[in-house]
């Protein structure tokens, strides 16, 4: 796949025999190629449709699309912008990553290197299954269980770290439906995904490297630091990026937990703000045709952000493949 062959060459090495062109072959090859082309057409259509609708909406926007806080496309003249949404999406994802990535690496190392061997397999299996729990279930649990249980944590953070500005809470008695809670919930959601991919990467570390380190008298932590982590680093990074892509696009878990309002605040414990996908679901019901176009414009921005993140992850994976191919 990596070497660029001239287009018409056949993949199989049986070209020497004169291939008879059979109708069955042509139909089947046509079907296969057709579905590949269809996929490209669909992607092009997605990009085209979203862009056309988004541009038509943004051109009628009387606020600045990038810096306006409010989302009121039904007003006359319409005013809407993505500042709050972009901020909320980024902040909640950063919180989620800051919590989830170290813990996920910890669990992956636990399964591969620390847990008793008889435990490691079943734990990995269970975490695999947890990755399949639908996001709406996380959302329900987050709203009905996590929010009340995080009240105490919020108060504590406000009491002891309120001076950092970030953890200051305007109204200490308000519910914990904040970007901080959303971040924690997203962290719990993406934990299984990051753990799974990291575990697979860590499992691929050549045993020889570890044994060599052990033979030199390294402690278990030194084995991990010197032979496991360097080998697995790019894999772990791309696993985290995949998790980040998931966190950025997550809809329902945010929509159920966050109490949204068009305000932008550095206090992450305050129940306000919003994210792209939460805003789409929340505003969709009351939107007229123009309102839908405005939402599509915000969806396009979300699409582009996730595209960038996923693309970066793929590039890192790609590079890793070459690296490990030369090394294995």
């Amino acid at each position, binding site marked *: *796949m990596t070497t*660029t*062959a001239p287009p*018409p*060459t056949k993949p199989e090495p049986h070209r020497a025999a004169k291939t008879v062109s*059979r109708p*069955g*072959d042509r139909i*089947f*090859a046509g*079907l*296969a190629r057709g*579905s*590949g*082309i269809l*996929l*490209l057409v669909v*992607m092009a*259509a997605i990009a085209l*449709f*979203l862009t056309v*609708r988004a541009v038509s909406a943004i051109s009628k926007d009387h606020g600045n699309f990038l810096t306006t806080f409010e989302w009121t496309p039904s007003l006359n003249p319409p005013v809407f912008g993505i500042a709050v949404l972009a901020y909320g999406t980024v902040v909640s994802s950063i919180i989620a990553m800051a919590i989830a990535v170290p*813990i*996920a*690496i*910890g*669990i992956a190392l*636990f399964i591969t*290197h620390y847990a008793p061997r008889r435990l490691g397999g079943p734990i990995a299996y269970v*975490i695999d*299954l947890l990755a*399949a729990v*639908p*996001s709406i*279930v*996380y*959302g*329900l649990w987050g709203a*009905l*269980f996590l929010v009340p249980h995080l009240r105490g944590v919020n108060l504590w953070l406000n009491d002891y770290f309120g001076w950092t500005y970030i953890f200051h809470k305007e109204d200490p008695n308000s519910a914990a439906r904040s970007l901080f809670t959303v971040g924690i919930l997203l962290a*719990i959601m993406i*934990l299984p995904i990051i*753990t799974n991919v990291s575990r697979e990467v860590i499992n691929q570390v050549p045993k020889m490297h570890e044994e060599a380190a052990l033979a030199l008298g390294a402690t278990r932590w*030194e084995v*991990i630091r010197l032979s496991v982590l360097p080998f697995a680093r790019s894999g772990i990074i791309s696993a985290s990026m995949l998790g980040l892509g998931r966190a950025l*696009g997550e*809809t329902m878990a945010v*929509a159920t937990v966050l109490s949204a309002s068009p305000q932008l605040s550095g206090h992450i414990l305050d129940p306000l703000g919003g994210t*792209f*996908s939460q805003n*789409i*679901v929340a505003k*969709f019901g009351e939107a007229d045709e123009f309102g*839908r176009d405005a939402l*599509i414009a915000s*969806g396009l921005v*979300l699409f582009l952000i996730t595209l960038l*993140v*996923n693309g970066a992850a*793929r590039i890192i994976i790609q590079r890793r493949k070459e690296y490990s191919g030369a090394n294995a």
Partner: protein
Amino acid sequence: MSDTVMDARPASGTPASPRLASRHLPRWSPLAIAAGAIAVAAGIGAGAGLSSHIQWGLIALVLFVAGSYAITARVEGRRQAKDRVATSLVWSSFVLAVIPLYSLVETTISKGADVIDGTFLTHSMNNVLTIQPGGGVYHAIIGTLEQVGIATVIAAPLGMLTAIYLVEYGKGRLAKWVTFFVDVMTGIPSIVAGLFILSIWFVALGKAPASGFAGSLALALLMMPVVVRSTEEMLKLVPNELREASLALGVPKWRTTVKVVLPTAVGGITTGVMLAIARIAGESAPIALLVFGSAAINTDPFHDPQSSLPYYIYEQYNNGNQPSYDRAWGAALVLIAFVMVLNLIARFIARWKAPKAGR
């Protein structure tokens, strides 16, 4: 027990340097340090009047890590001490992660099991006031099965054909583009897929989509890249000798693919498709945009709004009263059970049909 362990001395008999015979902490030392940390933390907590036991636990954890570092550094050296800290951090990250995940599963099962009974599974929400208990998920189950079924019928063949194209035929620029865009598609947020179908629907038909079929299209969009990826991986595992043997017998390439390559990989492909089904069965965002949800049973996916399990949960949660929350938990348990059963079957098939390694 013994504070010193003597290493084997060199055969020449030269006295080993004291470095080689490093001192070790006894095996029970972590337990002792933990007990000490907990005792001191309890003392501090009670002394400072901290009410939350979580805070006691955190203080104990910090004391334990710091204490074991200090003691090990004194007795065994800095390297061993770092190792111990790393070990305790890894263990605590595991415990930290298990608590919420366990709580999620436990809450869903215990709250859901209270609600689920024969009535819940066989009745819809038609004519049930949201503030009343009662009603059920029958209409949502029907909606989920139909929408996911249609999405699978659309996405599975297309995805498999695309994978066949990539593995068996694809070389050159087109294959590269397809590979790249499958990757791009994998990252589409589900809400964006919903928006896309929405805007197409408006352009094509000029009205809002309100049918299960529109939702199926969005789900198919989300499912297709997953199927392509997993099928591709499985087809790549089929040994080339099988293809060559079949082609050498004069079998046309398409028959080789259908009769030799696909049957060899069928286990893995089925697993991939089922995992993809399990993933889209839990999607609620596109359903919220495209299918709208309905309280009554609607078995026709092409006309009129339907419900679906994930959307039903969202709807019930938004009702914001206790009977609705109970129903949401019940539906969540049904949904999790559905997804888990699919996952377990998929894994079973994967193990059962796994290509025998070697020969």
